[in-house]
Each structure stands twice: as structure tokens, then as C-alpha cells.
């Protein structure tokens, strides 16, 4: 019952049956207004395979209780399953120890944890925090809040016309006041994959810790936090075929131990009197209160599912989809792709001459096609390209070329309506 119902090896292989994998996702059989659903909003949230759904049902029907507390059977089972989920994440990102994996409510919560736990303790007036133009608002706003509170300063790495970070400019921003780097692994708005290894290495020359916002990285490529040598790495379950409401923060043990807790409450303490509280060890120090146990276990199941397919296979397949979709879209007159980085995940942000993205989204929806329209919580990126918003098609490994063709036909319908 615990096994993944697909017989795949996790090495790169060209004979993955992607059609069969697609059949693992019941929601993809939906009809929208009589049209087959074409779900191309995976960068916002991915869909859940039956394997993960079944895991959630099994937990709720046979294993649920609160964890780390009682001595009864269910509490012990739930505690063990929750711990196992943490270990699956540890292996997934190749962390040294399971206590370096902290369950949070999602990427945003993870970043806020670092801002509160590390930033508020160690960043002082006139210190500098480096961020990039590509950041999602969730890796901008917490640092602005901190900068305002402490009198610290935010420095921003620019991007070029393709939507790639100007790494030379990044390196020029460092000085003795630089105390932190917040860096998005993959741009949610454009799909740009950033050269994070090189950027982490450079920051470490100045002994500056680096937080990687991996919300769009972890779902699409294999992550090795030891090889990257990043200090923090954050992502959410719901973009990796898991449930909403849970995510994780990886942090190097020594850093996590040096940080102050972010939330106070049960489970994060070793002992409490009204005179003094002694905090628990990591990871518990950062997991106050009853965590999202079911969602964390579902997260673990999603990791099992993705690992069975193999992240390398997923990356290779999604890359063929990206190439096909890009080739199709550039041939449509009036369509402009925003973000043409050499290294990209399967995200295509685009505009159509004379037609507002919201009208595009509404008319595509008529054909059952789900894309995201708007600023994608990345307004600095929109400002850089001088557009108020874009339409964004973002692909997952369960999408296929037929769906790309549907998108192309949908775009032509949009153009016809506004002719």
C-alpha cells in the first residue's frame, strides 16, 4: 500500500510512459463547459495524483492523531509517519540530517521564518540585503519589512532583456556591509533558471548566507543542497503534486541553531516556567503548535511519487514540451514571449498585441484552457519589461503536445474575437 503504483526507475530514461502517468491525475479528466480541461497553470499550483490522494485518505481513515504527545497507538503511528515524511524530504534534497528540514505552511512562511529567525537577530542598521529583480513578492516584502525595522538597505540585481540575471552586477554589489542574499532559483513569471551555484559560491567569499526560494525549482529539477552549499532552501508541497498548507525550509544545522524561534507555543519548548522558557532543539524549535500533519504526510507521498518518475526524466520531458510550445508560439503573428533566457523551465509568459491579458485568459477559459494572467506576484519583472501584466502558460510533466496545440488554437481564437 505504501508503494508507488508506477514501475519506473529514477535514472534518465527515454521510455517513460507519460500517457500512463497523465492517467494518475483524476482532475485532468474534467470537462470545462464541455471542453477537456487543459491545465497550464502549474506554476501557480500543480495537480495531485491518485497516489497522494489515497495517502491522505489512508492517513485520515487509519492513522490520524496529534503527534509528539500521547503514548497511545495512533499518536505513535502519526508521529512516525510525520517523521518519515521529513526524512523523505531530507533525501529528496540530499540534506545532511533530517533535523535540517523544517515543516512550514509553504514557501512564504519559510522565507518569513528566515527573516524573523535570522534577519531580526543578525541584521543591523546600514547592513545590506541583496535581492534580484526576478524575486516573487514573497522574497521581497519580508526583507523590506526587516529593512524598514532595522534601517538596513536592499540592493537589487538587474536582469537583461532576455530575463536573465546580470551576474556581474550581482558580484559588484558585495561589500563589507552585505549581510544576506535572497535569490529565486527559477523565476515564476518568466521561467528563467538562475545560476545559483555560482552566486552562492560568490556570496560565501564574503561569508554571506544565501536563501534560495525554490518554489519553482524543486518541482522541475533534482536539488542537492550539499552540492549547492546553499544556507537555506524553501519550497511548497502544492507545486510538487502535494497538498496546500505545507512547505519546507532547509537550513544548515549550525545556522538554524543560532537563530531565534519565529513562533512561540507548544512543541517548540524543552521546558516552560513563568520565569523562563528553554527552547527545544531543531527542527522542533521552529514548529510551534500542531503542524499540518496530514498535509506533511501527503507531501512525503508526493515526494515518493516524483522520485519514482525521476526528476531528471521530468526535467528532460518538460524541456521538450517547452521547445515545442516555444516553436509554436513564436510563429503566431502578434504574440510576443516575455522571458527568453537560455536556461528556462517550461514556463511561457506572453503578450498578444492590442489584447489585455485578462481578456486572453477569459477567452482561453472558454476553450477549457487554464492559464494565469496578471503580474504573477512579480511586479518588478513586469516593470522591467514595461508591461502591466502577461499571460502565462506553465507546464508540468502530465501535460502533452496536444495541449500545446489547444493553446495555440485558443490564442488564434482570441485574436479572431478582437480582429
Amino acid at each position, binding site marked *: 500500500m505504501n508503494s508507488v503504483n508506477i514501475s519506473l526507475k529514477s535514472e534518465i530514461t527515454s521510455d517513460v510512459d507519460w500517457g500512463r502517468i497523465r492517467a494518475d491525475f483524476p482532475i485532468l479528466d474534467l470537462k470545462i*463547459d464541455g471542453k477537456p480541461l487543459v491545465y497550464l497553470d502549474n506554476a501557480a499550483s500543480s495537480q495531485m495524483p491518485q497516489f497522494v490522494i489515497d495517502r491522505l485518505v489512508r492517513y485520515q481513515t487509519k492513522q490520524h492523531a496529534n503527534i509528539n504527545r500521547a503514548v497511545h497507538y495512533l499518536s505513535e503511528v502519526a508521529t512516525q509517519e510525520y517523521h518519515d515524511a521529513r526524512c523523505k524530504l531530507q533525501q529528496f534534497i540530499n540534506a545532511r540530517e533530517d533535523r535540517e528540514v523544517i515543516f512550514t505552511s509553504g514557501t512564504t512562511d519559510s522565507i518569513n521564518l528566515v527573516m524573523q529567525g535570522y534577519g531580526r537577530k543578525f541584521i543591523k542598521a546600514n547592513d545590506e540585503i541583496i535581492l534580484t529583480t526576478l524575486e516573487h513578492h514573497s522574497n521581497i516584502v519580508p526583507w523590506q519589512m526587516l529593512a524598514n525595522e532595522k534601517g538596513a538597505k536592499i540592493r537589487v540585481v538587474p536582469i537583461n532583456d532576455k530575463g536573465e540575471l546580470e551576474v556581474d552586477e550581482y558580484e559588484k554589489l558585495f561589500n563589507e556591509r552585505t549581510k544576506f542574499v535572497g535569490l529565486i532559483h527559477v523565476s515564476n513569471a518568466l521561467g528563467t533558471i538562475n545560476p545559483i551555484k555560482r552566486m552562492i559560491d560568490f556570496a560565501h567569499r564574503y561569508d554571506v548566507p544565501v536563501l534560495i526560494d525554490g518554489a519553482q525549482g524543486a518541482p522541475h529539477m533534482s536539488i542537492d543542497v550539499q552540492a549547492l552549499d546553499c544556507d537555506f532552501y524553501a519550497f511548497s508541497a502544492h507545486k510538487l503534486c502535494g497538498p496546500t498548507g505545507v512547505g519546507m525550509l532547509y537550513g544548515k544545522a549550525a545556522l538554524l541553531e543560532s537563530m531565534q524561534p519565529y513562533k512561540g507555543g507548544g512543541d517548540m519548548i524543552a521546558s516552560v516556567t513563568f520565569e523562563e522558557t528553554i527552547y527545544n532543539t531543531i527542527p522542533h524549535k521552529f514548529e510551534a503548535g500542531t503542524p499540518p500533519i496530514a498535509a506533511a504526510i501527503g507531501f512525503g507521498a508526493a515526494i515518493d511519487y516524483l522520485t519514482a518518475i525521476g526528476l531528471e526524466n521530468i526535467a528532460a520531458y518538460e524541456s521538450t514540451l517547452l521547445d515545442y510550445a516555444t516553436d509554436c508560439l513564436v510563429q503566431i503573428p502578434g504574440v510576443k514571449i516575455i522571458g527568453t533566457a537560455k536556461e528556462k523551465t517550461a514556463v511561457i509568459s506572453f503578450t498578444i498585441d492590442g489584447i489585455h*491579458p*485578462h*481578456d486572453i485568459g*477569459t*477567452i482561453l477559459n472558454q476553450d477549457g484552457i487554464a492559464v494565469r494572467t496578471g*503580474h504573477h506576484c512579480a511586479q518588478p519583472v513586469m516593470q522591467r519589461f514595461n508591461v*502591466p*501584466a502577461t499571460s502565462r502558460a506553465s507546464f508540468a510533466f502530465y501535460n502533452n503536445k496536444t495541449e500545446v496545440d489547444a493553446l495555440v488554437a485558443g490564442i488564434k481564437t482570441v485574436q479572431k474575437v478582437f480582429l
Partner: protein
Amino acid sequence: MHTNSLYQEVILDHNRKPRNYGRLDQASHHAVGHNPLCGDRLDITLKLENEQICDIAFQGESCAICKASASMMTAAVKGRSRTDAETLIHEFRELTTGKLDTGHPHHLGRLTVFSGIRDLPTRVKCAILPWHTLHAALNSIASTSTEANNESTQAVSNHPFG
């Protein structure tokens, strides 16, 4: 709901050739409306004489629904009294949020072409933004947002206009 019933020829026509587009030099009332969810921005200027809207203009960046709504709104309220305009604002809000009983007498005329938007909750704000901004202008509120509070159709926020 079929989206085609929303993107009807009258809406597409007002989007292509918006009426009263621009900015009045001698405006007595002015407001800027924002929809932060999509970045749309609409600027309305009008001239009120003896409680009559004798001229009105709009400009800004927006989707087709918002632009057509603004264009048809300016055509509908031009030459009408402030009271008539406020009635139309109220009825249009009721129409687009599905609260208007179209069986009863109303004053919307061709504006009922927007009735289909009630089935697309994420787009209702696009249609309402011009009306929301007109209401702000008539009440001398310089800036307004669809997101100023939860009751979006009532939302106004005061900003010193500079």
C-alpha cells in the same frame, strides 16, 4: 455561461473605438481608479454644472471589459443629473453582481450587455472599476481602488490628490 455572450459586438466595438476617451482640461471633478489585482488604472474627469454632468472623459490602461464599460458609461451619464448618474451606478453594480432583478424597471438600457459578467467573479471588478471611479469623482474622492476593503463595490480610500 458562454464567454461569447460577454464579448459581444457592442463591447468589442466600444473597446476598439472608445467614446469620450481623453482628459478634460476644465474638469470640476476628477478621480483615479485602480484595480491592483490586474494593474488596471482609469482616470475620469468630468464637468458638473448645476448638478448636471455636462461633459465627461476617461483614459487609462485596461482590459476590453473595463474599457468598454467606461466608454458606455460615459455615453450613458453625459447630460444626465448627478442623481441619475448615482442611480445608474447603483443599478450597474447590482447588475454585475447578479442582484438586479431585470424583470423590474431599470435605467440601464444597452448596459445590460454586461449582465454575463456575473458568472465570471474574477472579472466583475473589471466592469465595475469605471463606475466605482465615477462615484469617487462625483463625491470628490481623488483616488479609489477595487481592493480598498472587502466590500469592493463600496470601497473608497481617501488620498490627498496632488
